[in-house]
């Protein structure tokens, strides 16, 4: 029987895919919905010179923060890295390259890359440093800047539930960049919290169809950290 898309662990799922100076996309917003097991396996592999495409850089010691600690990342393409002190240190010391993208531009670049669209025009960033060195075109009386689609050698994705075919469902705001990145990896590797058989997910509820997913691992009960715990007091009746 074929092994299909299921791998026993993160290291096995990444075997043969990692090399120095590669481009890796990693889903997540802050540390919500990050492919933590897969990132740890990238760290353990020791590959260096990574260009990492991810909205954020994790926090110190969590998510991509792990790869910053080990200096495996050469360049980040992100929209916001404010929560990572190590990032600021390495950047200001000239050890790390950063390409800031407006968050919507980053999302659309990944969506476009996955859809085979090499470039598109957007109003976001016109008149700012983001537009420097890029084509600006007037369309119907307004100015737009040209942005390029993005793809990666490997996309790392975290999903809530997946079947063995790779059909995926995400949970609440842990969805974020994960479905787009699944479409934009030459190889997409997914960690799922719940692994089920085909037919157990209602086809109408599938967010990412399995065609985008090449390798899957099961990570039951992952540790999920909260970056900003905010609560309200219960008022007793």
């Amino acid at each position: 029987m074929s092994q299909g898309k299921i791998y026993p662990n993160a290291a096995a799922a990444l075997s043969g895919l990692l090399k120095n100076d590669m481009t890796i996309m990693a889903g997540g917003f802050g540390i919500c919905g990050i492919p933590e097991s897969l990132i740890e396996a990238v760290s353990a592999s020791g590959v260096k010179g990574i260009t990492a495409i991810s909205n954020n850089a994790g926090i110190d010691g969590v998510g991509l923060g792990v790869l910053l600690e080990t200096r495996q990342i050469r360049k980040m393409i992100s929209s916001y890295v404010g929560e990572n002190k190590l990032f600021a240190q390495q950047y200001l010391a000239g050890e790390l390259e950063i390409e800031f993208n407006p968050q919507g531009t980053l999302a659309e670049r990944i969506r476009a890359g996955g859809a085979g669209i090499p470039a598109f025009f957007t109003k976001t960033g016109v008149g700012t440093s983001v537009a420097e060195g890029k084509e600006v075109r007037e369309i119907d009386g307004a100015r737009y800047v040209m942005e390029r689609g993005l793809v990666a050698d490997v996309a790392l994705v975290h999903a809530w539930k997946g079947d063995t075919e790779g059909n995926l469902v995400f949970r609440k705001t842990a969805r974020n960049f994960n479905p787009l990145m699944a479409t934009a990896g030459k190889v997409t590797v997914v960690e799922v919290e719940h692994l089920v058989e085909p037919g157990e997910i209602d086809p109408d509820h599938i967010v990412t169809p399995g065609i985008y997913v090449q390798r899957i691992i099961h990570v039951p009960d992952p540790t999920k950290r909260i970056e900003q715990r905010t609560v309200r007091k219960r008022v007793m009746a």
Partner: protein
Amino acid sequence: MAWTREEMAARAAKELRDGFYVNLGIGIPTLVSNYIPTGMAVQLQSENGMLGTGPFPYEGEEDADLINAGKQTITELPTTSFFSSADSFAMIRGGHIDLSILGAMQVAENGDLANWMIPGKMVKGMGGAMDLVAGVKRVVVLMEHSAKNEPKLLPKCDLPLTGAQVVDMVITDLGVFTIDKHGKGGMTLVEVANGTTLDEIKAKTAAHYTVAPGLK
């Protein structure tokens, strides 16, 4: 005495209309959600992929998978929907969001906005701010009038821009200004905060502006 942060948020809430879809930035803008008038239907969008954000959870009910764009734990409402970052910014960039209320470091009299970077000092990134100011129908800035006695309302921003000619209104602790961002009307002072004077505002504002008729 000028307006407190709470009073500034309450003033900004007057810009809300029934049926609006609204994005609130981090900081003082977040407080605006406490002043949505009873009976008014306003859906708050969080750009990490949620429409219809609810209040903070009760202690013990926090969910790591349910956060807002400030990475704070929040809750769902019956109207809530979740979507990807691409769909989220399609809403924002496609002009489907009615109002964006966000903070700023500097605003220029022509509506230019700077709120994401101090060269050589702050390397955080713009997040969704550039998309919001470029795509949302109406942009309201909510900020302190001055920073360490330096004016923030300027003839021209000297920090890198978040957007050019994007701001419609500025609410500070001293008053409210409107900006005719696409026309030649410039900046107009339309309201003075309680306990503030026209002279005080003039002394603390570097931008050129006109005073609305009858204001004192």
